[in-house]
C-alpha cells in the first residue's frame, strides 16, 4: 500500500474495530485545516475552534492576574500589598493595552500576549511601589488610589508602548521563543 494513502487508512481504522462487537475505535483528528482530499470530501463531524475575540482573550488572561505588586526576585522590605481587586483592574488594563498595541495586525495568540503582559508588569506597577507609604500604626506599606490611565501614561512616556521599545520587546520575545521553546508547550 502506498504511503500516500496513510491518512485514508487511518480514517478507516475504526471500521476494523467494528468487526469486534466489544470495542469501538474513534479517531479524533486535530489539525489546523481539514485535509479533505484524504476523505474524498466526505462530510465529517467537525468541531471548529474559532480565534478568540479581544474580550475572550481578556477573560482568559484574567485567570493569570498577578496576586502581588512584587515578583519573587523583588520582595518588599515591609509587609503590604494592593487589594486583589485593584491588582486585577490594573492587570485587565495592561492586557487590554498590550492587545491594542501588539495584537492588532500581528495576530498574537494568548500565550504570547500573556508573556508580554508579564514582562511589562514590573515596570507598569513600579510607580505604585515608589509611592507607597508606611503606615505607622500597623507598620505596613499602604498604597494610594490607583488609576490605570495614569500608569499607562507613565508607561507610554517611558516608551513601553510606543516607538522602538515595542519592536525590541517583540523581537526579544521571539528570540526567547526560539531558544527556550514555545511558552504554550510549557503550559500544556
Amino acid at each position, binding site marked *: 500500500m502506498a504511503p500516500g494513502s*496513510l491518512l485514508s487508512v487511518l480514517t478507516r*481504522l475504526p471500521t476494523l474495530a467494528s468487526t469486534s462487537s466489544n470495542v*469501538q475505535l*474513534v479517531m479524533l483528528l486535530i489539525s489546523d*485545516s481539514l485535509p479533505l482530499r484524504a476523505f474524498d470530501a466526505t462530510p465529517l463531524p467537525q*468541531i471548529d475552534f474559532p480565534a478568540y475575540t479581544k474580550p475572550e482573550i481578556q477573560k*482568559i488572561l484574567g485567570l493569570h492576574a498577578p496576586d502581588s505588586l512584587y515578583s519573587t526576585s523583588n520582595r518588599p522590605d515591609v509587609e503590604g500589598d494592593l487589594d486583589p481587586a485593584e491588582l486585577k483592574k490594573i492587570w485587565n488594563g495592561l492586557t487590554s493595552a498590550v492587545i491594542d498595541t501588539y495584537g492588532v495586525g500581528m495576530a498574537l495568540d494568548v*500565550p504570547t500576549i500573556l508573556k508580554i503582559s508579564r514582562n511589562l508588569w514590573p515596570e507598569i506597577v513600579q510607580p505604585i511601589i515608589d509611592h507607597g507609604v508606611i503606615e505607622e500604626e500597623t507598620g505596613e506599606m499602604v498604597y494610594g488610589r490607583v488609576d490605570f490611565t495614569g500608569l499607562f501614561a507613565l508607561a507610554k512616556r517611558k516608551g513601553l508602548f510606543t516607538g522602538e521599545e515595542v519592536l525590541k520587546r517583540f523581537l526579544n520575545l521571539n528570540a526567547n521563543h526560539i531558544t527556550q521553546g514555545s511558552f504554550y508547550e510549557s503550559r500544556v
Partner: protein
Amino acid sequence: MTFDSNPGIARLDAIYPCRRDQFRMLYLLLGDPNFPSPPVVCLTGFPKGGKRSCARAFLKETSSTYIWIDCLETLSPALFFTKLVNELRKLEDPESPRIRLNADTTSSVGAVREALQSLNGKIVLVWFLRCTKLTIRLLRILDV
C-alpha cells in the same frame, strides 16, 4: 447525566473559558461510553486556539480511554503503526513488551486488528496533525 449538570464540564469551563460550545460538541459526540460515536471527528481551527489542550482535558475529565499520537513523533506509517499497536497492547497489559512493525501497511493494519481483539469499550485515537512548515512539506511528499 446531561452536559449542563456534569460537574466535570463545569470544571473544564472554569479552566478553559470561552470553549463551552466546543466542550458541548465533544460531550455529545464522545461523552457517553455506551452510546456509539462517529468513527472520525475533526477538531480544526487556528494554531494556539486550544484544540489540543481542550481535547486532552476533556478526555482526562471524562476518564475516556485514549491514545495520543503526535505526527511529529511518527513521521512514517511504520512509526505510526508501531506506536499505535504498542499503545493498544499497553491498554490490555501495561507490562507487555514493545514490538516493532515494518513498513508494510497491510501487515500493520493486521497488527492493529489483532491488538483490538482483546479490548473492550470505546477507545479514542487522537492524531495530532501539527501543520508546521515541515509537516506540510512532508504531507506533500507523502501525497497525503
